Every structure is written in structure tokens, then in C-alpha cells.
């Protein structure tokens, strides 16, 4: 099963962490990436920059807006795409990444299906 692991975190909280603590958390990420590369479960991993640009069609023209989430403290900090045996394994993998926020795990839609949906 392929899952997208979305890592949400609070940038203010992250910035307030002492350097050693931030290094420790980042190291956990790197260790996990190495481990998942070795097992062949990692499809991709991306860290996202902090600049947020929200775009919406206004009268048919893309316009930059304030975005819908100005009150929200958390942002999407990074994402993993993994191919694992089960949701339990995805939780096991993603769990340690939720130290300063939370992770959201979503199944990735695939263009496959056996057509047997009515038995």
C-alpha cells in the first residue's frame, strides 16, 4: 500500500527549540530516511520551505491571496511517500516524526482495481 505521510508542525515552536534538540529531531528524521531507503519502502521525501503562497482563481484569473488558514499555527513541513505492507507499518514509521506537531497518513489513490466490487 502506498501512503503519503504529511508532517505538520508549528514553525514558531520549532524555531524556539534549542539547537541540540532541533538537531536530535532532525537526526531522527535522517535515521528514518536511511532505514526506509535500505528496506526499499521509501518512494520520495521532501522538506518544504516556509514561504506560503496561496493562489485562487478570481474572475478566471489566478490571484495571490492571504489563504484560508491565516489563524492556523501549524503548517505542512514535509512529506514522505512510502510503499509499505500495511497501515500499521505506516503508523510505526511515521509515529516518531510527530514529536512537535502531528503526522497525517493518507492512502494514495491508484489506477488499479479488480472490478469485483459487487462480489
Amino acid at each position: 500500500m502506498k501512503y503519503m505521510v504529511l508532517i505538520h508542525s508549528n514553525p514558531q515552536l520549532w524555531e524556539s527549540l534549542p539547537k541540540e534538540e532541533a538537531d536530535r529531531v532532525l537526526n531522527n528524521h535522517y535515521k528514518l530516511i536511511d532505514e526506509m531507503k535500505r528496506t526499499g519502502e521509501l518512494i520520495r521525501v521532501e522538506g518544504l520551505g516556509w514561504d506560503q503562497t496561496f493562489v485562487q482563481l478570481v474572475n478566471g484569473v489566478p490571484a495571490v491571496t492571504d489563504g484560508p488558514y491565516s489563524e492556523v499555527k501549524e503548517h505542512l513541513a514535509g512529506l514522505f511517500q512510502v510503499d509499505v505492507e500495511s497501515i500499521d507499518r505506516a503508523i510505526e514509521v511515521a509515529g516518531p516524526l510527530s514529536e512537535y506537531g502531528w503526522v497525517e497518513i493518507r492512502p494514495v489513490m491508484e489506477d488499479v482495481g479488480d472490478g469485483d466490487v459487487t462480489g
Partner: protein
Amino acid sequence: MTTEPRVDDLLRELAPQVLSAVVRRYGQFDASEDAVQEALLAGATQWPNEGIPDNPRGWLIAVASRRMTDHLRADLARQRREATAAALLPPDAFNAPGPDDLAPEEDDTLTLLFLCCHPSLSPSSQLALTLRAVGGLTTAEIARAFFVPESTMAQRISRAKATIRDSGAPFSLPPASERAERLAVVLHVLYLVFNEGYTASSGDELARTDLTTEAIRLARDLHRLLPADGEATGLLALMLLIDARRPARTLADGSLVPLSEQDRSRWNRAQIDEGVALISRSLAETSALGAYQLQAAIAAVHDEASTADATDWPEIVELYGLLAAVAPNPMVSLNQAVAVAMVDGPAAGLARLDDLTSDDRIAGSHRFEAVRGHLLEMAGDAAAARRSYLAAARKTTSLPERRYLESRAARLGESAAR
């Protein structure tokens, strides 16, 4: 001058024979596997231009052996540097065999299958390793078929090989006491390969269809090696009987057609005949029927009905009953509920579903809701059926299934509005 598909087929057919000959000679499954992949690659690039050699198997073994010799030399040099004894190698390890000096013609494909489906590996690793080592597919081909980057698949395969090496598993058939259990894993892996290929409805369809072909070829091999094994026969029959429906299973736009609405004239008749013959003989010869045999028997009942209405549903209900006894599984109960509805009406089928709601494995799945929607629609409760179809559509991770379920719901929406 030969055409490329012929070269590809030949290479895949020879891959397990060459690999087992090299492993027999040099040991070191992981290094041998690398060497054989290089030899296959050399064949794939040279043979289309230079023609297929007189003894293609010997040619590949010779090329792979040269690679192994290089590898062993490098290994030995390293060991010397570490002042380790070099006397561990067989005396002729550095002489690549000539084409006439081959390993005996015994077929080690079965041993290879057991090794690739070693219980220390995860199912996805067993699948990948089997396709590469036994199926002779390249890592790139396997990666394409599973929609993952080549680097991801390469890691998975090399990890699997390292696990086999570290487990110290010998290159020999498992002991008799473990044989049945290990064979069940092999059958399951081939079945998974088949499903991976069969469930493709669009996208990289060629690569996926290839997997079904590959699974059938490997199941055929297994049946040839174990002709008396009922489940190996059952698995091959099941694959043939299900794959026979492929031409009618999707429309040109990739949308799914349920079994009851398929154009049966487009089914592959020859494949059905072969599957039916295999399963009929196997059922007659076996006393304790297994899950693949029973599933093949069910598929045969469907395939032998000239129209959906002509389906022998009472027979199917009975077969599902036997299957539920041999391999109790919520998916079986779900299919059984559909068959019961076809015999005794939708209310009876829905009552069966109610018995399943306490089973967490199935009650939360999209299939449960899809079947419920189907039975509610049969019962004439359009509004409830629509709710179930939409619930199922939200839960599936398959795009074609979601489109199918949404279209069922939309159709009911229209009829309710009329």
C-alpha cells in the same frame, strides 16, 4: 535474425536455470544473482544483433561464471589483505565452464522459488525477488510494474538478497516437514504477482499485463514440477479462468465492467477450456480440496455460464461453503452473501451481511459497503443503496473502482428523482 520478443521470452525462460547452475557451482546466491542479471543483460543487447547462440543456456552460464570469477578474485584479494585463508573455494572456482561443461540438466527452478519466497522476507520482497531471480525480469521492469522508482525497487531487491544471505538458507529444497508450509508461501506469492497484474485497468497497462503473463508462466512451471499437487494445479487453473475474462473486463476508456454485465463472447475460450480441464481433473484426483482449487472451481462455474442469468448459483453457494470451511476469511463470507442473494433473494443476502458487521476486518471496508449497495439495489431500496455506494466510493483507494461506484450511485440518484 530473430525478433526481440523471442529473445526476451528465451532469456526469461532460461533465467532460473542459469541462476541455479551458477549458485550450485559458486554458492553465494546474492553475488550469483547479480552475475546472472549481467549475463541476461548481455544477451538482451547482443543476441538481437548477433543472433541467438547455438547453446544459449551455456552462453549465459559462461558469461555469468566469468563475472563470478571476477567477483571471487576481488573477494579473494580482499581476504588476502585481511590475511584470511583462501582455501575455502572449490578447486575449479576460477575456471569458467565451457558450454559443454554444464551443470547437470536437473531443474532447480523449484529450489529457487522456495529460496525467493523464504519466510524471512516480507511479501513485497518475496514478490520482487521471485520476479527477478525466477522470472528473469529487470529491476526497471519490476519497478515500472509496481509504480515505484527504480531506486526504491533496487533497494528492496538488494535488501532481500542480503536477508537471504544472512539467514544462511542453503540452496536446497526445504525439508519434508516444512515443505507444505513453504509451498503455501510460494503459491501465495505467485497469486499476488497475478493480482498485481490483473488489477491494472489503465495507465501503464502493458507493464502490468506482463505480470499476469509472468504469473501464469511461473504457475505453469510450478505445475510442471509438481503435477500431483492439487493446489499448484488449482492456482494455475484459477489464473487461467480469471485472466480469460480480461478482454471483457474494462471498456476502452478504462472503466470497469462487473462480471454480470461483461460481453461473454469476448472471453478467451481456449484459456477457459484449459482451466476447466485442469480443475476438473484435479478435483477428481484430490480428496482434501484446497482454497485455490475451490476458487478455481467457482471461477469455472462463472466461466461456463453462457449468460449471467444462466450461472449455476446454487453450485456457487455450495462451493463458497466448502471454501469458508477450508479457508475462513471475511472476503469469502462477503462473496458467499452475494451468491446467497442470487439464490434466495436480496433479503437473505443482506441477512448474511448483518452477521458480518461485527467483523472489523470487513465491516469497515469499501467492499462491504459496495456489496451492501448492490444487494439493497436488488431489493429496490434506491436511497439506501445510493448511500452505501457513496460510502464505498469514499473508502476505496482505486480510481476505477471509485468511478464505478460513483456512477452506480449517480444512476440511482437519477431514478430516485424521476
